[in-house]
């Protein structure tokens, strides 16, 4: 138990591990979902939560209630609306990337190959639609492509868009240095202000850029013109150099070392934010105002000699006075706290078992102030069988003119099971009380037995009833 050594700053090493571990979990969640709409929604929910806490602290009752409702609804909406995006993130990541794989930006797209291929397609007037997804991802926007997973090359791109191939219709999606999907259907834009010479490919390119941050390259089949679409920009490309410059600008490939540096700085900032957030949350949970609480906890006995049984205990529960921050104290449930007494050294008879600190299991961050009682008296005994005579217990007054001259019990003795020490002092089993007032003649009565102490039991299968046959006569 004395692993809980407080550091000079008042923090235990467990607290530091607690903060670091949870910061890392938060950081990993960011890494997994970065670039998706889910992370933006989660950040929005976090902002709402902060507003809700602020409203609570300021005593804004309706605002805090409203925020609570909005947060609950927003959490549900995120799961429902972004279920495909969440599933895509979870399915595409391997096991290692969940816990350790350091986040790498996608392999840099070989812009040279794309530029070269696009101009070859334009020269041959082969219509083409090429999509380069960036941060946001396009899984929720595009439909029913054919998985390809081929290494990007000029020849492959030409083959895909060659007239008459089964996959030349639709868009080809390029991620890093791979063609991941072909013949993909993109959403069409409903804009009315597009140039009249724009065909379905151009409209699809605009439709996709309206809903994502992807870069889309369109090669016109009729005119052999190249157009690049990004967000709301429509860039007509005149030559290779311009296409190369535009692609590098939008895919972040203007300088590889600069991109890596920016990427590292971004992750570093996120890591610091995660650490600061978790530290704040930890302190608000664990270092709040000290609150006291008294809890009645049932006692569990363990390691008793299997031959012996517990026949009595001075108490079956103990009262624990606990302290901790208000948040932690409020979150305690009875099953979080356990009192387990070790009876390994107990002997037959009465044992004084102290309730030591190491017998009590408490949730992290909760301190024990007081235990009542500090010891329990536990009676252990070896169960034995004993045959005891049965005697009737009479009460009231027999009529003056009568004498009860004989009483016979059927059966006259009975086998009971109980602790050897208890049974040592018991010589008779008595019946329940029989009122004498109602007796005028000889007769028989059926009675139940009084087993005292309650730890006494009848032998298995025995009925707790005996008959008393009595004989009365007149004086």
């Amino acid at each position: 138990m004395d692993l809980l050594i407080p550091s000079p700053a008042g923090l235990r090493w467990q607290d530091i591990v607690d903060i670091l571990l949870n910061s890392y979990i938060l950081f990993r969640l960011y890494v997994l979902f970065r670039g998706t709409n889910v992370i933006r929604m989660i950040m929005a929910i976090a902002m709402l939560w902060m507003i809700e806490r602020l409203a609570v602290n300021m005593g804004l009752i309706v605002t805090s209630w409203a925020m609570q409702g909005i947060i609950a609804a927003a959490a549900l909406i995120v799961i429902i609306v972004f279920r495909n995006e969440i599933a895509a993130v979870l399915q595409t990541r391997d096991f290692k990337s969940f816990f350790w794989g350091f986040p790498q930006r996608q392999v840099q797209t070989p812009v040279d190959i794309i530029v070269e291929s696009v101009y070859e397609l334009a020269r041959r007037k082969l219509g083409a639609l090429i999509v380069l997804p960036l941060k946001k991802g396009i899984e929720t926007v595009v439909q029913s492509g054919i998985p390809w997973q081929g290494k990007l090359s000029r020849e492959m791109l030409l083959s895909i868009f060659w007239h008459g191939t089964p996959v030349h219709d639709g868009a080809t999606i390029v991620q890093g240095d791979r063609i991941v999907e072909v013949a993909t259907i993109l959403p069409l834009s409903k804009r009315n202000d597009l140039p009249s010479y724009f065909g379905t490919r151009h409209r699809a390119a605009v439709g996709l850029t309206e809903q994502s941050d992807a870069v889309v390259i369109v090669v016109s089949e009729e005119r052999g013109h190249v157009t690049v679409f990004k967000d709301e920009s429509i860039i007509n490309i005149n030559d290779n150099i311009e296409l190369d410059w535009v692609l590098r600008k939008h895919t972040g490939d203007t300088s590889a070392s600069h991109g890596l540096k920016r990427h590292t700085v971004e992750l570093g900032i996120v890591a610091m934010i995660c650490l600061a957030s978790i530290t704040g949350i930890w302190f608000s949970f664990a270092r709040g105002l000290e609150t006291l609480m008294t809890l009645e906890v049932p006692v569990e006995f363990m390691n008793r000699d299997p031959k012996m049984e517990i026949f009595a205990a001075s108490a079956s529960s103990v009262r624990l006075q606990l302290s901790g921050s208000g948040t932690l104290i409020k979150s305690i449930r009875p099953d979080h706290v356990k009192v387990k007494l070790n009876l390994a050294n107990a002997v037959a008879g009465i044992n004084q078992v102290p309730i030591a600190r190491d017998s009590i299991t408490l949730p992290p961050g909760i301190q024990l102030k007081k235990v009542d009682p500090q010891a329990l008296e536990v009676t252990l005994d070896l169960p034995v069988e004993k045959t005891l005579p049965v005697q009737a217990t009479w009460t009231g007054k027999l009529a003056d003119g009568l004498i009860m001259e004989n009483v016979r019990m059927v059966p006259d003795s009975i086998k009971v099971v109980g602790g050897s020490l208890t049974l040592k002092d018991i010589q008779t089993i008595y019946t329940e009380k029989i009122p004498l007032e109602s007796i005028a003649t000889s007769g028989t009565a059926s009675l139940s037995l009084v087993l005292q102490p309650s730890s006494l039991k009848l032998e298995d299968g025995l009925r707790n009833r005996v008959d008393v046959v009595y004989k009365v006569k007149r004086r």
Partner: protein
Amino acid sequence: MKDTIQKLGLILLIVVVMTQPEAGWGQDAKASAKLTLVRAVMCETIQEYAPANPAVIFSIKLGRVSCFTEFDQVPEKTYIHHKWYHYDHLITEKQLTINPPRWSSFTSMQLRDADKGPWRVEVTDENDKHMHTLRFSITD
């Protein structure tokens, strides 16, 4: 001298032969005549050396209750005990002398209000060997 020793030896032998069977017969007689309890009852009182109104339930208003025991074939003077128990608590133990050839004896208990409830009297011999148990109740 030798004659004298022979005569003394003969006299000693006669004495041993004459006395030995008698002692053996005495032991056999004692063993066969065992102390026998022929009657044990609880009663309201003792009248003319006999129990009056034997019963198993007695009113507290009687003020007294007695345990009467009668022995036949008492081979020798001996002792018995009457042990009075209220519930399973020993209240009193009384030693009684029993004389041959027959003997009756009794013990009594003065009743108080707190004595209501089931009682028993255990009769034991001088070696504390159980002979009989009488069960009775004191009521209103």
